[in-house]
């Protein structure tokens, strides 16, 4: 790869691929115009501190989302397994116990995360 290199180097990079004269003229012109566009476009580097803060925030939200998805997946798996076990061993009590657990667990989880958020808001 080359970053805004002159056309003669560009031609070296495309060795072995047949091109005719008109193509070369056209690609040279294209290269020249895109170089001008590049040259006339000013893009500043972002400051490191806010960028790092943004990355940290995003990493935190991705981890949180992953945890939530994992919990939901495990709950769905538990419900399916409890149903199959209850059907297999004919134990309605076990079925209801696991069902109750799988309903209570997300409620506790949600309540916990909501109260944490509320605490954070108050402390701010």
């Amino acid at each position, binding site marked *: 790869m080359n970053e805004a290199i002159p056309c003669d180097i560009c031609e070296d990079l495309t060795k072995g691929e047949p091109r005719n004269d008109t193509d070369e003229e*056209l690609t040279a012109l294209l290269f020249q115009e*895109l170089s*001008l*566009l590049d040259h006339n476009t000013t893009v500043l580097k972002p400051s*490191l501190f806010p*960028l790092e803060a943004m990355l940290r925030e995003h990493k935190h939200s991705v981890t949180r989302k992953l945890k939530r998805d994992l919990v939901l997946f495990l709950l769905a798996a538990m419900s399916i397994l409890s149903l199959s076990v209850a059907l297999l061993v004919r134990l309605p009590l076990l079925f209801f116990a696991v069902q109750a657990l799988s309903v209570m667990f997300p409620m506790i989880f949600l309540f916990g995360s909501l109260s944490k958020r509320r605490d954070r808001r108050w402390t701010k």
Partner: protein
Amino acid sequence: MNVNQERVSRVDGEQRLTERARGGDLSALAELLSDNYPFLVKYLIKVTLHPQLAEDIAQETMLRALEKIKLYNERSKFSTWLIAIATRIFIDNRRRSMKERSILEEEVREQQAGRSLRFRLASQGGEWSEVLDALGQLSDDLRLAVVLKHYYGYSQKEIADIMGIPEGTVKSRIHSGLQALRKELTDHDLEAYQESPKRQGKSLAAVHTYE
């Protein structure tokens, strides 16, 4: 320190930063992304011809890079890896927006984007050319392939990896792209365009800045 030594130390520095970033060091990743940000945005401006969209995709690319940094295998340069992520995001966004909006809305949006880039270029003392106009007429797929090949000098295999398509498709897209460009700028116009003194002066200025 001569140019070669400077280049080697820059590559070493980038390699060290990459290793730290892969190990979960966010400040190293932030430094890497900040260094590559102007290059990434300039690439996206050439491909989208829409400065605002280019910046949006660049920001999304940085977040995606954070999620995927552990998958980066250092086989290509970090900037190439970023370009690959940005290209996929651009293609996905384009597909989604084509589904959501009508063709007419899409055309209006493209015209507005072109105007915005023209204004930006004019305000920096540059000039919008017929070649850029012709490039803007190409479909995104053709423009991507042509820019990656004839401006950045990637091989067909590298472009295939970046765009996630077979090598043969890349070859045909580059060919069709050049053919469409040639159709827009007829042979006569092309020669007249190249011979114009204003253009020649500008091209020299551009080459000097990259030497």
